[in-house]
């Protein structure tokens, strides 16, 4: 078997193990599936009246898609930190398997999870009035972009999980970083509402451009939305650039850290 074949075979064994694991922890499963429904309902109906955007519920659904898949990416890091803590990584490292398979398999199984979650969110969105107003192909590209961005972030999370080594500490850290990352954006409120410097940050935040690109692909951009920066005018390209850079930097970093992690 070729080297790539070994990586794929081993990664699929790891991915299958992670999927099995999810079905064995009902709490995790319920939390992962229910919380996006809850978010869509809460944001749609609680903030909907207070925020001045025409058809706010349609505005917010792509924002919640983005936030949810990004949180989904953190599962990679928490899972790896947990495996580090329990000595599972050590066992994997003593096996003649491909060294990259644990990370490749882990990030892959989290994409599968994110796909399931996205389907559930979409159905909930449809129920509360969100619509895809473009073509099927546009919608597919929109979803692909969301999942791809989350996939790239899961490599960042994987690296953090290897460095932090305890799932509790990891979850604290992601809570403190992912909330600002996803809230200082256009996901929940129009960018015009942010004060000066915060607005600039939000305009260049790749999560904003991801949300903007998704809204464009789904046909959910409110009329009269100002696109003041290059990043927002070229949201899809700008987001893709981020994805490429994140993958180019963090895939090798995480893989290298994996080799070192247990080797201390």
């Amino acid at each position: 078997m070729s080297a790539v074949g070994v990586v794929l075979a081993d990664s699929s064994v790891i991915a299958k193990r992670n999927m099995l694991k999810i079905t064995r922890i009902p709490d995790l499963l319920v939390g992962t599936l229910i919380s996006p429904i809850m978010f869509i309902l809460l944001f749609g109906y609680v903030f909907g009246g207070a925020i001045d955007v025409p058809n706010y519920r349609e505005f917010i659904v792509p924002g919640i898609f983005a936030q949810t898949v990004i949180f989904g990416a953190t599962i990679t890091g928490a899972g790896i930190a947990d495996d580090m803590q329990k000595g599972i990584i050590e066992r994997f490292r003593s096996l003649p398997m491909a060294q990259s398979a644990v990370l490749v398999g882990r990030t892959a199984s989290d994409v599968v999870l994110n796909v399931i979650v996205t389907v559930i969110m979409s159905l909930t969105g449809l129920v509360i009035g969100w619509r895809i107003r473009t073509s099927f192909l546009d919608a597919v590209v929109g979803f692909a972009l969301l999942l791809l961005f989350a996939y790239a972030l899961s490599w960042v999370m994987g690296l953090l999980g290897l460095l932090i080594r305890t799932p509790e500490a990891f979850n604290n850290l992601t809570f403190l970083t992912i909330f600002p990352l996803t809230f200082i954006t256009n996901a929940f409120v129009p960018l015009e509402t942010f004060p000066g410097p915060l607005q600039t940050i939000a305009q260049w935040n790749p999560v904003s451009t991801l949300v903007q690109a998704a809204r464009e692909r789904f046909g959910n951009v409110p009329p009269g939305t100002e696109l003041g920066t290059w990043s927002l005018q070229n949201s899809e390209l700008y987001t893709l650039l981020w994805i490429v850079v994140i993958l180019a930097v963090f895939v090798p970093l995480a893989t290298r850290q994996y080799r070192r992690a247990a080797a201390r």
Partner: protein
Amino acid sequence: MSEVFPRVPVMATASTAAARAVSPAVEARGLVKRYGDVTAVAGVDLTVPAGTVLALLGPNGAGKTTTVRMLTTLLVPDEGTATVAGVDVVADPREVRRRIGLSGQYAAVDENLTGFENLDMVGRLYHLGRKRSRERAWELLEQFDLTDAAKRVAKTYSGGMRRRLDLAGALVAEPPVLVLDEPTTGLDPRSRNDMWELLTRMVGGGTTLLLTTQYLEEAERLADDIVVIDHGRVIARGTADELKTQVGGQRVEVVVATDGDVDAAVAVLHEVAVGELQVERRARRVTAPVTSGTQVLVQVLQRLGEVGIVPLDAGLRRPTMDDVFLTLTGKPADEVAGVDEPARPVGEGVRP
């Protein structure tokens, strides 16, 4: 896949046995590992002939686990060389991993998978193929008395069952060299005994076993050869008998009835002792190394009678592994155990 990753047969044929006689299953020369200023392993030499059992005996923090981690490719040595099953651990770590089974200090089973799923997964990662991995998982579950629990998640297993499952994981690929890091630490006495019986049966089949332990009894019971390690250095090696002979002589042991009698007993034993006394006040036991056997015991009993002490117990015994440890390290085994572990500066719950 098996064409690409040839498995090494467990049962040595006559010719391979001869080949192994010249090249030992594990050979380490001058292994050194440092963590900043702390030298966890300071030049360890080891040789484990094929088909034998070597126990690496020492207290916590002695450098046992660090040594084992270097031999199992989990850690790259700062100095020194090692081959396992004929393969250099630094030059070709993946080939070494193909030929070893490792079971760590904490049972590294995935508690959300069933016993079967755990072993099946390990088989797939050894590239045994789908069919063979399943067969092998069932064989091992049977062999380790886990068939009834095969379809339960490992979370529901007892400590002993987890350990057995972890050990089974190390045997999936029928490796010629098995490495067990403190296989019975944390087990209750009954599970420990079961594990010892299991290991004794296993090594009867010709597997080479390198194990670490802080239990003298375990080393004595399982190992052909013992290497005593402390502060990252080998301080003694040999069979259990050789080590005892090295310490030499016999011991007179007296247990008295009251705390007040202990000092009197110490005074009496001082008169006959040829080395340092061992005084265990809580057990009210005093032990003295002596040169000649029975006459000394008679003499001790007479002297005790003269000062009005009737011992609860008095006897003559050969040195135990505890005495060996006391003599070699200057501290009893249970006192040395429990000191900090410089080999493990980081990571909670993960083995050093």
